């Protein structure tokens, strides 16, 4: 499937990446090559094959429903680029 510049721009927004003009151009070409390569998967007859999402197909693992200690707020916030004593700070989400 051909990768167009428009596709790359759309995917960059979905991926929350900002690509420069040069990056967009290079990414379009390289993604085209790589997707072209992985397209060979379509040759394989997978009729009736169950997808395998995991190497070890374990079933649900349950933990005892008991209260345990969790990471203290101060530690959880210790790597935050911006925070107050209660939580993470980000640019305004609604309005200006």
């Amino acid at each position, binding site marked *: *499937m051909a*990768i167009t510049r428009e*596709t*790359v721009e759309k*995917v*960059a*927004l*979905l*991926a*929350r*990446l*900002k*690509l420069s003009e040069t*990056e967009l151009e290079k*990414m379009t070409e*390289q*993604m085209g*090559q*790589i*997707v072209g*390569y*992985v397209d*060979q*998967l*379509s*040759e*394989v007859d*997978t009729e009736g*094959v*169950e*997808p*395998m*999402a*995991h*190497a*070890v197909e*374990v079933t649900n*693992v349950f*933990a005892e429903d008991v209260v345990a200690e969790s*990471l203290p707020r101060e*530690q*959880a916030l*210790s*790597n*935050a*680029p*911006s925070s107050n004593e209660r939580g*993470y700070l*980000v*640019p*305004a*989400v609604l309005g200006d």
Partner: protein
Amino acid sequence: MSLLDRSACQLLADLKAGEISSVELTQASLDRIEAADEKVGAFLQQSGRAALAAAEQIDVRRAAGEQLGILAGLPVAVKDVLCDSTTTTTCASKMLANFRPPYDSTVVAKLRSADAVLVGRTNMDEFAMGGSTENSAVQLTRNPWDLQRAPGGSSGGAAACVAAGMVPLSIGTDTGGSIRQPAGLCGVVGMKPTYGRVSRYGLVAFASSLDQVGPLARTAEDVALLLEAIAGHDPRDSTSLEEATPAYSQSVSKPLENMRIGVVKEQFATGLNSEVETAVRDAIAVYESLGATVKEVELPHSKYGVAAYYVIAPSEASSNLARYDGAHYGHRTDQAEMMAELEAERKQLSESGDQRGLDNLDTPLIRMYRRSRAEGFGPEVKRRIMLGTYALSAGYYDAYYLKALKVRRLIRQDYDKAFEDVDLIAGPVTASPAFKLGEMVDDPLAMYLVDLYTVSANLAGLPGLSMPCGFSEAGLPIGLQLQAPPLKEQRLLKAAHMYQQTTDWHTRRPPET
């Protein structure tokens, strides 16, 4: 002869016998790093003082007759992708340049409780994405056998520091060959255990269904020792297997009898360097001389391994790396600069009356995400996030992601069938010895194809081991890969040990660095 020329098992015996102290050994390791790492670049940071303090503690406890852990006093290097609360964990990325994890990974905690001395954090491809360590945002690592060549990757630092004799033991991670490939290119032993054998708790995630932590060292016995220290069930990793950890270090020296070795014909087809082919065939002949029977087996879907891998791994990566949002931890773009940019764009669009442009302007929050991630991630990480996002996006999910998962099952079924007839599969690790630095940096697809022989074990979840089996005329190490059914690490280790008892490739040392 330097202390560090001895194997970890030998050093352990010397420590127990009181012939050397851990302080002495740790100092020798730090001195060697100081002397050689300027050229090799294996370490992102060393913990000199903390390491010596830990070593001293162990010596004191030993003198007091205390019961010590199985790695007591041995220097160990850790790839900078496993959380250690005493220092930064950077994944060789600008994104995490200042990240100090609030907790220890299970593997780091197990190393500490085994009384290992953690001497430093090794370089890697950013977020473990790559096969040459050139994607590190921090520095290049050079192959100790030829400083113009790559050490492989992504655990390039982990393999190079063992090859250069800086540490006897080292921890790496392997998502598509990232332990076995650099081990092969640097002439050391490296193992990717069965998926689930070693806990991934506190391992910074790349592709969660493929990532596995494993040991690197110069001998099979040393790899067995280190694996024993880090393996085991962990309730904090729900994919961790509830299997008892065998005493690998005890069983490794028991030879295998009536060994049946499988050889995959396609692995010796076009594209395989002739020196590699000769060395690998010679190694298989060594096994025959040790009583093994060799049988051809078929893995018909393995040729699609790289294609399936480069759909599945980027898909998982795009999801895993969504956590780097500039809000919780990691790099955030400069907010004042960002707001100024937004204002300038808005002004320009309203002056030209471009209502559509105005409607499509990224909000401050989206803009913060996009700029932070654009600044924090390097080109390969961006490429994989883009590929994964594409493969998972509406309209392409069935054609790429789901299809790749089906091919993954076929690859696993091929292995299951092959292992009905053989105990191990032997073959090359890479198609050629170490390549030159810079050779493939502008050709991502060529770089991806280096993983041809290693990705299938990750897709299938099997254990695999790589060890030196010869040298090219130019003096570069050549690796042999052994693969086994799930949970048969002991079989791999025993087979590797048998080989090392008969050959001396593992005793060769790189030219003085």
